[in-house]
């Protein structure tokens, strides 16, 4: 029986050993956290001093010991992310000579390591890393490519926006919200390239739709005519995006292109067309909108009543209230902010 007892004891020992490893892991983690904390105590005030008391970045960088470089870069990055303008530039100047420590990580096999290094390098580095960042747009890992695209979608990299736009097809799984807000971060300097992209029917429609949304976020008035030209496209996603863009930047000149779409058989195109026509159209369009209300489609009813409100068509709204049903509730919601 002794070997059996030994076998059970071995299993118990394995469990205890596992537990011991967890404890060791905790001790190691605690030590690492303490070390980083100690470095923060030293380096936070020093880096902040670059901004507050005019310390010289180069001489401060010379104080960094080789073994603390990666921690100091982390700390600088943490601070730089919260800063803008010249304050951020001062921190970047300080960190630039330290970034060499991250170069091997940019070639790491693990995409997460590459992505993290790229994130820090593009955030703390200057224009000398722009070409490197562009190359990472074609990294086999979508994560690395995403980091590169976000890094380049900054006002200081506006001339490179074409590189990102050319690769939008790669990002077709991203939500439109993510793509469009990323592109809009570049600012108005990128608007001409985006307009051209929207107007290019050789480009994938999902990418053009995302660009339309970016132009909407930028409130680019010049995009209105380009958007109106796309309304005859077959792709509903693109049409809806252009209608939303027109709602924001369009004028009555584009109302004619919008009108036929309020009878579209796709409800989301119809809804977007109604709200756009409410903004761009004239009082006469109220009749058209009334005729297009589908009593069974809540979104269309809601958008129709909002469009009527935009047109100050109170008589038509009152008629809807009187007629009852779903459009009546939608009209009450629009007229009285939902108050019963």
């Amino acid at each position, binding site marked *: 029986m002794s070997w059996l007892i030994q076998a059970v004891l071995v299993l118990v020992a394995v469990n205890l050993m596992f537990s011991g490893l967890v404890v060791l892991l905790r001790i190691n983690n605690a030590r690492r956290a303490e070390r980083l904390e100690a470095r923060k105590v030293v380096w936070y005030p020093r880096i902040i001093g670059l901004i507050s008391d005019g310390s010289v970045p180069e001489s401060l960088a010379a104080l960094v010991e080789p073994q603390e470089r990666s921690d100091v870069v982390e700390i600088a990055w943490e601070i730089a992310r919260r800063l803008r303008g010249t304050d951020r530039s001062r921190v970047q100047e300080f960190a630039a000579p330290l970034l060499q420590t991250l170069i091997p990580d940019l070639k790491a096999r693990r995409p*997460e390591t590459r992505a993290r290094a790229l994130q820090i390098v593009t955030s703390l580095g200057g224009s000398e890393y722009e070409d490197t960042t562009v190359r990472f747009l074609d990294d086999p890992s979508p994560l690395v490519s995403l980091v590169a695209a976000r890094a380049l979608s900054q006002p200081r990299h506006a001339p490179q926006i074409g590189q990102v736009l050319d690769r939008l097809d790669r990002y077709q799984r991203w939500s439109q*919200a993510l793509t469009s807000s990323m592109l809009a971060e570049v600012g108005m300097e990128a608007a001409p390239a985006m307009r051209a992209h929207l107007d290019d029917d050789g480009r994938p429609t999902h990418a053009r739709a995302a660009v339309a949304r970016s132009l909407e976020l930028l409130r680019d008035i010049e995009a209105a005519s380009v958007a109106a030209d796309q309304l005859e496209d077959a792709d509903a996603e693109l049409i809806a995006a252009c209608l939303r863009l027109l709602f924001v930047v369009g004028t009555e000149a584009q109302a004619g292109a919008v009108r036929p779409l309020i009878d579209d058989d796709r409800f989301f195109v119809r809804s977007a067309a109604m709200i756009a026509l409410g903004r761009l159209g004239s009082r006469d369009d109220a009749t058209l909108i009334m005729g297009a209300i589908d009593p069974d489609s*809540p979104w269309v009813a809601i958008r129709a009543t909002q469009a009527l409100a935009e047109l100050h068509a109170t008589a038509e709204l009152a008629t809807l209230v009187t007629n009852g049903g779903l459009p009546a509730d939608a009209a009450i919601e629009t007229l009285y902010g939902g108050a019963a």
Partner: protein
Amino acid sequence: MIDPLTAFNVFILFYFAVLNGTYLILSLVAFRSLRKYIDRLESLQIDDLLASSGGLPISLIVPAFNESATIAPSVRSLLTLMYADYEVVVVNDGSTDDTLETLVAAFDLEPIVRVPTSNLPTAAVHTIYQGVRHSNLVVVDKENGGKADALNVGLNYSRSALFCAMDADTILEPDALARIVRPFLEDATTVAVGGIVRIANGCTIDGGSVDDVRLPRSMLVRFQVLEYLRSFLAARVGWNTIGATLIISGAFGAFRRSVVADAGGFDASTVGEDMELIVRLHRHCRDLDRPYRIEFIPDPVAWTEAPETISQLSRQRDRWQRGLAQVIGRHRRMVMNPRYGVPGMVALPYFVAFELLGPLVEVLGYVAFVAAIVTGRASPVYTVAFLALAVFLGSAISVSAVALEELSFRRYRRFGDLVALLVVALIESFGYRQMSTWWRLRGLVSAARSDLQWGAMERRGLERVNPAAAQALGDNQTDAATVDPDLVPIGDGPHALSDQTRSH
């Protein structure tokens, strides 16, 4: 010839080996995935990502039934989340206490007309209210119909492309919404995302958020803490890695509204409506050959109150088991059906063999083990093998769950808590596991009798050290979530759009 008892014992050994072996493999897979995931989060700089993308509008749907003791602080806490564009839709599910009156008084609600944007069948809706000071707070008062029915009402009356289903007593961490929305941003085919649910008993709660994470004193709750770690960090992360997430907790999950509405909403005829919906979403999307992702991610955190008495816990486990049985019964066509991919070919068969039938086999195994010992037919080799596979390997898996927590999020910062968790992991297989198996077996028997009753849980309410602070925070909240009327808030493209006009 082998006698039946010996044959059965051999089968039991094989069963435990596969069960615990699978868990061990899932733990190993989870270990790799968690490391990768945490590195990914660091490389993405999630705060910046969400700040720049503006996030996606989301509705928090909170079913409430007789929650008058806790509803006001819970809602106040929800109104202080760090997210740009969200609404809170509380559905009062025919409470017989003064839940509604409490809400009306606390948030200065007034009746409104709100058009439902889908028409899932539900119990009758009486009145809809909106907060005067918090226009992003909507309260729907309805006939009692159960949690799934209340969620469907919330779905009908919510306006965002995404919604988050949760329990009224759940505490979301301030950045939980922002984190749970990230997969929807990164992949437009994402239809559902689950976050981690942690146990708040024993923690210090201040201003509607968990301030100080501690292990509870109660041993029964400590066992549950360990179970949750094992379930979320090992099993769910592991299953998620192979694309087979079958459960998103009803306490905290985010969904693409249009897809859930298209699939028919929550099923009010099951007590396992959370798992049922996920399995149905797999089925729905695969039947339509529609690309989709259902994700579990471990960083968005919701805190919940765990049962503190054996009777409450046994009722909960009984209900979970009944729910599981109903879900598998309802979707049995998916089991071992190649059309349903990994969920149908791997995850569901596992759930049938080990989660559904597990309690039955385990109890019979324990009985056979004792019988073999008593009758003297248990060979020494069998005895050791049984102890090794059923008990000590189980302990090793539990310890590995603690290791996963330590490698990833390290929420239990006190060294004493870590040691206590390890002790719990080592002793869990001696008594608690067998009790839990027994409760699940009772649930299985109830399911066989088609018992659809919910076990009531008396809530003690989580300790909040500073309710006044929570109130002040809530009252100062500005209307951050007014829906932009110029957008059709129904998704990211036609694939995500749905006009719910059909009748059910």
